[in-house]
């Protein structure tokens, strides 16, 4: 039997991608994707990819179900095909499409014409990972396969006559127990690291921090689609810098002054300690509002960048997020001091709608 579904499927994908592409800027400024992973499916409302028909609103029709429960009992969100979508595009019907985050990043990459990154260092070094695919008769309790065990016990009880339909109690004994068995499969090992630094001082407003988070998130997702394994490290700073986990990075609120050099110092230390440049692809991203202490910290920053950061990294990127009251001079200062250096990128982010272009200026060099 010769089937032609591939052609129809490709056409469908093409249509969805086209619709996503047209609305990409709107999707990438959404906050709720943050925290998802590349293989996760995210649900985005896409206009015009479903064939419209005259139909009722399922919410006003309701329905008939079967099972226990009093009047007023919620029956869960199982009725998936639900009501109208997010509704930020009036007059158009929307289809919630599930896309893998990595797919979205890929479209983002194409739309921004981001070049494929050519990784350096050792390639394709793999490390064994465990996957649970088989069944075993012995194993730890935590890996017990409930359904298989139950079936086995049920069979045994029926055969031995100890099963009664009136009192269907199934008690597994030792021979009934079944466990998931693991198998080693090769998985990728990390050879790239991204270090995010964010200014969380008092002058950074919530909106500015949000912009940083959204941009970091998409950079992260894009880079993850380029490397088989990747590590992320997060640094926040006001006058002092500290390393935090991802969760904290995306949610922390702090206040205080700003000493940018503190972050660069910590970054340099981390790199020198954990990530020798010969083996690692290193990306540094720093976001602040451009205000810095005026006691010569700028000079210290320039020196740190020149001597300790730039030499080993694929890219050093600085994004200056403009706030309601303007922003500082750090970006201009850097622009003065570092002219046309291959692995350094600067970007001024004036609002959410500039995230798109900012990502392009950071990653457009394909390093």
């Amino acid at each position, binding site marked *: 039997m010769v*089937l032609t579904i591939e052609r129809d499927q*490709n056409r469908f994908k093409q249509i969805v991608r086209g619709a996503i592409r047209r609305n990409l800027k709107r999707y990438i400024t959404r906050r709720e994707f943050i925290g998802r992973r590349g293989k996760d499916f995210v649900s985005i409302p896409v206009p015009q990819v479903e064939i419209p028909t005259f139909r009722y609103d399922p919410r006003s029709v*309701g*329905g008939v179900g*079967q099972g226990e429960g009093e009047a007023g009992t919620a029956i869960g969100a199982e009725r998936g095909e639900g009501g109208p979508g997010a509704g930020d595009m009036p007059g158009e019907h929307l289809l919630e499409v599930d896309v893998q985050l990595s797919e979205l990043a890929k479209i983002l990459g194409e739309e921004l014409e981001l070049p494929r990154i050519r990784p350096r260092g050792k390639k394709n070094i793999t490390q064994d990972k465990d996957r649970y695919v088989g069944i075993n008769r012995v194993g730890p309790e935590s890996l017990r396969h409930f359904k298989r065990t139950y079936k086995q016990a049920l069979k045994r009880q029926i055969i031995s006559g100890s099963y009664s339909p009136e009192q269907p109690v199934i008690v597994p004994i030792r021979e009934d127990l079944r466990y998931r068995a693991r198998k080693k499969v090769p998985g990728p090992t990390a050879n790239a690291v991204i270090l995010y630094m964010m200014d969380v001082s008092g002058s950074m407003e919530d909106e500015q921090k949000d912009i940083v988070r959204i941009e970091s998130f998409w950079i992260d997702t894009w880079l993850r689609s380029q490397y088989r394994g990747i590590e992320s490290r997060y640094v926040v700073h006001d006058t002092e810098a500290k390393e935090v986990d991802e969760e904290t990075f995306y949610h922390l609120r702090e206040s205080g002054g700003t000493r940018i050099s503190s972050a660069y110092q910590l970054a340099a230390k981390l790199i020198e300690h954990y990530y020798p440049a010969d083996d690692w692809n290193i990306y540094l991203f720093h976001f602040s509002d451009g205000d810095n202490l005026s006691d010569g910290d700028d000079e210290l920053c320039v020196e740190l960048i020149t001597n300790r950061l730039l030499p080993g990294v694929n890219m050093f990127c600085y994004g200056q997020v403009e706030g309601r009251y303007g922003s500082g001079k750090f970006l201009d200062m850097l622009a003065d001091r570092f002219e046309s250096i291959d692995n350094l990128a600067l970007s001024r982010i004036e609002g959410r709608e500039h995230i798109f272009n900012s990502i392009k200026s950071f990653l457009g060099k394909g390093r």
Partner: protein
Amino acid sequence: MNLPSELEAIRESVHEDARAYGLDFYETIFELLDYDQLNEVAAYLGFPTRYPHWRFGMEYEKLSKGYTYGLSKIYELVINNDPCYAYLMKNNSLTDQKLVIAHVYGHGDFFKNNLWFGHTNHKMIDQMANHATRVRRYIDRFGFQVVEEFLDSVLSLENLIDQHSPYIRRRERELRDDTVPGDRVTVPKLRSKDYMDEYINPSEFLERQRKQIEEGRKRKRRVPESPEKDVLLFLIEHAPLEDWQQDILAIVREESYYFAPQGMTKIMNEGWASYWHSKIMTEKQLSDAELIDYADHHSGTLGTRPGVINPYKLGLELFRDIEDRWNKGKFGKEYEECTDVEAKRKWDRPLGQGREKIFEVRKIYNDVSFIDTFLTREFCEEHRLFNYGYDASTGRWVILDRDYQKVKEKLLFQLTNLGDPFIYVVDSNYENRGELYLYHRHDGVDLRLDYARDVLVNIHKIWTRPAHLETVVEGTRRLITFDGQEQKDRELEESLQLQF
């Protein structure tokens, strides 16, 4: 027959049992497919050859995603055709295959005997392939994008057919012709004396007047004469279309009519097939070793979740209930009028008409009449059916009540017209400007307006003049319009279509 010998032996034995129970089906050809191929065929609604369109790709994505994540699994597909085609999943266990083959013969019997399938094309596999060839030819001639765009518009109307029309023999329309004597238009004359008449009412003038009036009447006469539910047919006959466009409309319409009976008998068809797989398996086919696997599969198929009616379960239970009632004589005037609950429960006049009755039911009912006739208060209570709705204040779906009447009404509403709204063409020359006027017969539930507006855009592409839809939005009568440029929406003083 290309089944491996092991399966072929099973098939033959199940076939024999099915025949012995009195099931009557077309010759059934089985094919084994792997899950991917099965998902492909399923995306094409069972037909290996369909015209190219992305919505099949969309369906396929959904199905294969469901399979990959273990959310859904298709065991079998049966095509209403003579011979009947059935696709089985290759890597199912033999117990599963046995069950599925029995299930398939149940469907086969239903397709062949249920009256609602009486008018479907039994050579549809060939016809679908023929449709595909025609569409491909148009693509070659007019370009992929042009044809796809047109198909997109037409598919948006594919549910606008009149499912019952194949079963109705209408009287030939009486000729309504202005030349019929007695219907001659008379022009009012000015009063005059006889001898002056020729001067006051000159005959040339009268003739001119008469022509004018006739012209006006013709213009006023409405097309369609009575509301037309088969909107696709109306467009084929009246829209300004190229030949190939007309053909594509006809193709989509024909396929809609082919699939309609399956939608109209979903509960019965699945119930009937499940009744028979269960019967054949438990009474004839099961070996001891297979029991647990069978029970697992069977309970999976019949499992219920709170928010959805499982047609397999509801249909099977109803057939069993009917069989039981007709075995025990739990029907008729005496039984209905009995008020003693206990006596009714224990009612047993050993009539033994159960089997005969369910065969009759599978022949002449569809889901609407099936539910309407056989869903009893007792059944509703025993099977814990409830009525649910959307609670806007909490944003959740909640159980509303277990009222028998309301449950039944809701179920019937969802089955009537395949759960779609009733839409009619009532005028094709609205306001004397060649505009299309559609009427939504409001049955208490509003349309989804975002979709409705987009459908109007698609109708406009076919009709090429402004398209209107009269409907009711939150209690007010409104006219939604797409005129080729923009969407409009205004309140209506009175309905154009009052006679409904």
